[in-house]
């Protein structure tokens, strides 16, 4: 069910939420968090809500989407839309459109909707503030999720995360490569137990997930890590073997090859935002490995 509340205030919206819940019987009291989504564009709005709804199946939550309305008007105005039941996955969605001077006070509008005594997570699906923890919406949250992939210059974006880092920040580019990392780690578990002497990460230029993967490797191995543009693959070199994980750019099946062993095929499709988001909501403590990987990007040799 979708209900529009034009030109309203937070008290009226809260009342309506309670009323709808009582009427529709859409009661999920077991919510584990509040997810605040801050986007700048209408285009991202539906996509983000879809991702949040999918993630809510694993993490029942209240989703509050903040989007600027008419910035130029001088009159402060709040328009809201509520979604519950089928239109909201396992959660309820509150879309808040802020116009005029109100656009600069998003956190004051959001505060009355935060669920009591549960963690708040803020997600910027496209443009993120330089220092997420100092943004008014970021200040409300214990976890701040950005997505360099949708930034205007993805490489610059992911590189800038280090300067803006506060414990509790993560980027969806990082969750995009979780299975790549897991497969590489599992491959390195196998003998020969030799150190990795060098690594190569190759793929699209505008795929920040690969930059952070390279940064992760750069911090962990004793040797050069190279990032190039070209076919999608990661190569780890040990003295007596090379481990390669490669996938056609748009394919869903990757090949894991090792010197002297048969090639193995493995399903490894590009992860969608909703899967990445669900993974990011699984743990709300600081991701130290992410931070380490950010610091590693500087050591990567770009060719």
């Amino acid at each position: 069910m979708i209900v529009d509340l034009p030109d309203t205030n937070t008290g009226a919206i809260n009342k309506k939420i309670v009323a709808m819940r009582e009427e529709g019987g859409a009661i999920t009291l077991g919510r584990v968090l509040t997810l605040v989504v801050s986007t700048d564009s209408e285009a991202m709005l539906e996509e983000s809500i879809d991702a949040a709804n999918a993630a809510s199946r694993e993490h029942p939550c209240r989703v509050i989407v903040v989007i600027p309305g008419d910035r130029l008007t001088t009159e402060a105005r709040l328009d809201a839309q509520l979604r519950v039941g089928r239109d909201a996955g396992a959660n309820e969605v509150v879309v808040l459109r802020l116009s005029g001077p109100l656009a600069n006070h998003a956190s004051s509008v959001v505060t009355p909707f935060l669920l009591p005594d549960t963690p708040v997570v803020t997600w910027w699906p496209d443009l993120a503030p330089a220092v997420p923890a100092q943004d008014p919406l970021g200040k409300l949250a214990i976890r701040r999720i950005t997505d360099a992939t949708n930034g205007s210059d993805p490489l610059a974006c992911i590189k800038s995360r280090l300067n803006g880092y506060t414990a509790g920040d993560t980027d969806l580019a990082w969750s995009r490569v979780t299975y790549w990392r897991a497969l590489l780690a599992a491959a390195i578990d196998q003998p020969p137990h030799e150190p990795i002497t060098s690594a190569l990460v190759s793929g699209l230029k505008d795929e920040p997930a690969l930059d952070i993967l390279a940064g992760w490797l750069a911090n962990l191995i004793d040797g050069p890590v190279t990032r190039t543009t070209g076919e999608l693959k990661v190569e780890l070199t040990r003295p007596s073997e090379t481990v390669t994980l490669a996938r056609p750019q748009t394919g869903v099946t990757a090949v894991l090859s090792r010197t002297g062993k048969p090639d193995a095929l493995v399903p490894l499709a590009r992860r969608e935002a909703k899967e990445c988001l669900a993974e990011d909501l699984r743990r709300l403590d600081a991701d130290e490995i992410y931070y380490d990987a950010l610091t590693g990007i500087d050591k990567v040799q770009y060719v």
Partner: protein
Amino acid sequence: MSPANDRAEAAWRNPLRDKRDKRMPRIAGPCAVVIFGVTGDLARKKLMPAIYDLANRGLLPPSFALVGFARRDWADEDFGKIVYDAVKQHARTPFRQEVWDRLAEGFRFVQGTFDDDESFERLKDTLHKLDIERGTSGNHAFYLSIPPKSFPQVCEQLSKSGLADKPEGSWSRVVIEKPFGHDLKSAEELNAVVNSVFPESSVFRIDHYLGKETVQNILALRFANEMFEPVLNSHYVDSVQITMAEDIGLGGRGGYYDGVGAARDVIQNHLLQLLALTAMEEPVSFSPSELQAEKIKVLSATRLAEPLDETTSRGQYIAGWQGGEKVVGLLDEEGFSKTSTTETFAAITLDVDTRRWAGVPFYLRTGKRLGRRVTEIALLFKRAPHLPFDATMTDELGQNALVIRVQPDEGITLRFGSKVPGHIMEVRDVSMDFSYGSAFAEESPEAYERLILDVLLGEPSLFPVNAEVELSWKILDPALEYWATHGKPDPYEAGTWGPESAFEMLRRSGREWRRP
């Protein structure tokens, strides 16, 4: 391998792994799983779907193979079709063609019988070929989804054909399902046979209850929180009731069940494991050996309360109406003798002789054709020593209770007294509910997914060891012997909560079974 080499191996650390990296899932190493008894119900309904679900979650290695072993004259493709149907019908996660295609490439079928040496030679060849073609690296898990009477034979064949040996750097593990014997003596014999071929560290005994999220949550509830553990002792707890009830009957399972009975089938393994987790002291750490040490400790302090004619009860269902359906009694079920004295309901009283639990009876009951399908652990608290109310105000107040619902509708219920709205003071019971399903993942992984993955990773914490199995028999044996020599089970109507003797058993101490 020289000792110096050994040390170098032990010192080797995978640079890509970091304990702080909680995001990274553990993917099993290259391996092949061999299922004996692949045509059975368990294999079709649980094992094969669980393997697919693991693959779908990306937790199986790229070099994975599944080998079926059975008497049927099947080609690899026929076997693939059987797995396909099983997955389509029973898998938990959605079907994805690309995952299926990769998984199916590793399917092999070996036709053979347990007494035929050549079949095991063929199995050996198949596994050897898989090591070369698929890179399974000589790591093999043998899942014995077969009647226990065939365990010795299969173990011997595995040993004779050299399949149980692990070449350097690889592993060979065996997975067995309950029943682990039918009394202490047979359990010891079975363990001896299995251990003569596989060292205890390579034996994984599946008690699928231990793979359930809610069972693991008992540990979280008790040891991660401050508000429950202080009251879990004889000062506050009056009694503990552990129930596993099934609504199904035994039609068609006669061959297996007749002569075994509810106590051997359920109490010896599932219920005593639940008791161990509920009653054990806090382990020093969650490492497998520490967990086992605590479970063994508490099981060794547990014994049947006596006299057995007053503290135990057993029953056999007779015809009745269950859930709107007329059902026959056990003696009329196909496959049972008309004079069977096999019990389909069993209840026992246990004392745990530790400082924490002395004086608190643990009531365990299980049965077929009971009121509904439910498994729960209920801790019932004593009444407050003094109630500053008139007796009429607390007439309707029962005992406080903490109930861990294992299945279905996994969660925790807390029951306590609350004031009834109105101008007079009146207190009655209310329930506070935590439901796993609505607070976390829409669906938790199936127990078998977790357990199979743990076998492949060589992570033994959720598997009972030899000593636990033998201790459990030691606890239960006196009751089994007593029943064998004293009459027959009391009849109870299908669809009820067991025979009158079970109710009488609690009434003697002024208690009552909770209706789960």
